[in-house]
């Protein structure tokens, strides 16, 4: 639903090409778009204002390099400024204090404190080899203490025994005591969710702080938070004093502007990112990723990581060898469909690609959803080995049989075969050209998955549009699709939308 900043700016700067430097007026116009983009990403208004001023001073009079458009130039300046503001250097959880080191977790209700507590405990145990004790101070929400206890049991992390009716301050005292007596290195205190405006609860947590003297006080905050993120962070900072922020639910599709707001007003580093529901889904903060997201540039780093995680290296290599020879049969196609599913389906993959937000939406409208992949996989699995290896043998009666077997229809099979043929052709071409680009090194799994035959992002928008139409016929190309990614020429080889497998051509048009 959001246009990315690059697309917007290219509109503003289209008329400017060929000039030497950005004038103040050009910059003004561009910065209005920057401001809009930031606000849409939930960056708080005062923070967006301050940030835009920072960008202005950097941008005025900036030389426009010959190779890039002014739009890209501004995006790069904004991107770099974002990275600076978010904190370029990594800050880890510090345990540099006499044991037991207390770490206190605070935040609003439902921000993810308990889950984050367990994740951090596990991380400290595994990576730092520390002896960790967890204690829940949440006496308010029903079964909150139970939740931490269960997480402890599931992951072999010791938790403080629950004593019914004990108040948070008393629990904290008992936890620190148990930490000392038990020879623990770290005691994690998971506090109850509280509103930053709740005086009584804020006073209570201050008492806990004065008793436990936490070496780290971490604000656990939802990355989907809106404009109020500034107030939340400011209040927690001024009332309790924070040493870091844990940003949760970064695996959602939010733009994460809250991260910038909170970092800006508190000045404390964002230390960790929660990236999923599982206990090990906790990552070091990477400002570039968040900056890219805020700008709607997609999360290419995550995509690459995810691809590396899910794609079986051996399989990929086999695929690459086959492609070189120009062989690409239906078994290979089936495998690609499966990979796609593993990476979160088409929406998942597209969502992470820069500038693809709009296409993703169009796909949704054209009802090109992931169920198509499943149907196609079903078609292929209803074929005999021979048919899969050599689709040419599929005559009318065989097709009827396959249709009946897979619960689909003959036209659907024809569409699949046509798509396969096109993909196989592209593979052949690519086999000749050799694989350049980012995914070349990954042995082709990714190249095949993403683009099939698209070693480089099409630089001509018309070309991209043609490919899009080929892909689903959803038409209406978002502006600037063909332009390169930001920051140093972007990533070659991220296959255009052209070859996404599994998109029967024509279906979108019928709608």
């Amino acid at each position, binding site marked *: 639903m959001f246009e990315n900043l690059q697309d917007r700016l290219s509109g503003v700067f289209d008329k400017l090409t060929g000039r030497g430097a950005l004038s103040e007026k050009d910059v003004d116009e561009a910065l209005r778009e920057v401001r809009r983009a930031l*606000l849409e*990403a939930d960056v708080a*208004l005062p923070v967006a204002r301050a940030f835009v001023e920072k960008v202005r001073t950097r941008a005025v009079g900036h030389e426009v390099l010959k190779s890039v458009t002014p739009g890209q130039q501004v995006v790069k300046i904004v991107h770099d400024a974002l990275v600076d503001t978010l904190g370029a250097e990594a800050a880890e959880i510090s345990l540099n204090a006499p044991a037991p080191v207390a770490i206190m977790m605070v935040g609003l209700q439902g*921000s993810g404190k308990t889950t984050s507590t367990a994740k951090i405990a596990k991380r400290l145990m595994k990576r730092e080899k520390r002896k960790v004790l967890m204690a829940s101070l949440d006496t308010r929400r*029903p*079964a909150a203490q139970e939740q931490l206890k269960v997480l402890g049991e599931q992951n072999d992390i010791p938790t403080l025994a629950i004593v019914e009716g004990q108040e948070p301050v008393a629990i904290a005292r008992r936890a620190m005591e148990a930490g000392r007596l038990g020879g623990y290195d770290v005691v994690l205190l998971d506090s109850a969710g509280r*509103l930053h405006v709740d005086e009584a609860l804020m006073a209570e947590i201050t008492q806990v702080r004065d008793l436990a003297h936490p070496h780290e006080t971490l604000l656990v905050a*939802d990355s989907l938070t809106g404009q109020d993120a500034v107030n939340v962070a400011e209040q927690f900072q001024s009332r309790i004093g924070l040493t870091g922020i844990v940003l949760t639910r970064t695996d959602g599709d939010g*733009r994460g502007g809250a991260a910038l707001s909170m970092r800006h007003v508190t000045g404390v580093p964002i230390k960790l990112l929660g990236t999923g*529901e599982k206990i090990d889904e906790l990552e070091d903060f990477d400002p570039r990723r968040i900056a890219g997201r805020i700008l709607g540039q997609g999360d290419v780093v995550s995509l690459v990581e995810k691809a590396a995680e899910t794609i079986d290296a051996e399989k990929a290599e086999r695929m690459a060898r086959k492609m070189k020879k120009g062989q690409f049969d239906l078994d290979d196609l089936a495998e690609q469909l499966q990979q796609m599913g593993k990476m979160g389906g088409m929406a998942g993959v597209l969502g992470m690609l820069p500038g693809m937000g709009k296409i993703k939406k169009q796909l949704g409208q054209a009802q090109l959803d992931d169920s198509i992949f499943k149907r196609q996989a079903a078609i292929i699995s209803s074929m005999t080995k021979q048919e899969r290896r050599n689709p040419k043998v599929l005559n009318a009666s065989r097709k009827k049989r396959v249709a009946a077997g897979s619960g689909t229809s003959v036209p659907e099979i024809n569409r699949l075969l046509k798509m396969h043929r096109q993909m196989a052709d592209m593979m052949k071409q690519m086999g000749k050209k050799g694989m350049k680009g980012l995914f070349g090194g990954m042995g082709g799994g990714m190249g095949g998955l993403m683009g099939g035959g698209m070693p480089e992002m099409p630089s001509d928008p018309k070309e991209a549009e043609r490919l899009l139409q080929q892909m689903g016929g959803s038409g209406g190309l978002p502006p600037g699709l063909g332009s390169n990614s930001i920051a140093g020429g972007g990533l070659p080889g991220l296959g255009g939308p052209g070859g996404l497998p599994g998109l029967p051509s024509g279906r979108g048009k019928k709608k």
Partner: protein
Amino acid sequence: MSEHETNPEKPEKKSLFKRMKEGLQRSTQALSEGVSGIFTKRKLDGETLQELEDLLIMADMGLDQAAAIAEAVGKGRYNKEVSPEEIREILAEEIAAVLAPVEKPFEIDSSKKPFIVLVTGVNGSGKTTTIGKIGAKLKAEGKSVMFAAGDTFRAAAIDQLKIWGERIGAPVVETKVGGDAAGLAFEAIDRAKAEGTDVLLIDTAGRLQNKAGLMAELEKVVRVIKKRDPEAPHLSLLVLDATTGQNAINQVEVFKETAGLTGLIMTKLDGTARGGILVALAGRFGLPVHLIGVGEGIDDLQSFNAKNFARAITGAQK
């Protein structure tokens, strides 16, 4: 709140509005003071309207909705001196106009037995707590209530709902942790039918709307419910956290498609200085808003009233 037994109409209404106003105090302050800051002794012009628009953006109203409302406020009033009080009034009216179509009380159709309510949302939005509170309200109205503990993923989510069940005397249908939520819903419907329960509230695990696998699971829960009762779920509700920013729009969009949403519940409105996201959602989707949460108490989960809400957040006096 004991007085509403003796005089059910007026005092209750008043105290509910007061509760909401207190809960929304911060929103009120932010918008109301902002308006004073902008319009005191100044003419309404492009500049002041831009500032008003900014103010609305800061209330999470979203760029488009903020621009639309600011424009409506400015219409026909350019270059006139308009007092902050008047602006608050106009603003309240404009916001109420956007919200009025989505004001729809949470109602149970007693001809449907059990009346099945499915509750969905992203992690931490307050689903389980909301279910507990709705259950308590229904119980107080004399209805029989059953809970289905469909959040089989989060540690102790089942326990949390069981505590609510004990508190209000409602049976809880549960399965083991990691169990099949769709199967549980199926079983719960059968049990509610057998026991002649009035209302069955089905909890679900929190899920981010961009997780294809989890959304497919939710789709299955809905499918299975429909197998037992083609008309069910009679209400399919999304619980939204009011502190959420513009991502709430994505959430509604995807859950609407997956779970066939019939309405929204917005929680944690008391903590935020915002609440504008509700206006953005109303303008965009027009989905009924049944209940809003303005505090932690059971009575803080209230029926949504567009006019009162608009007055409360703008600080309009009348």
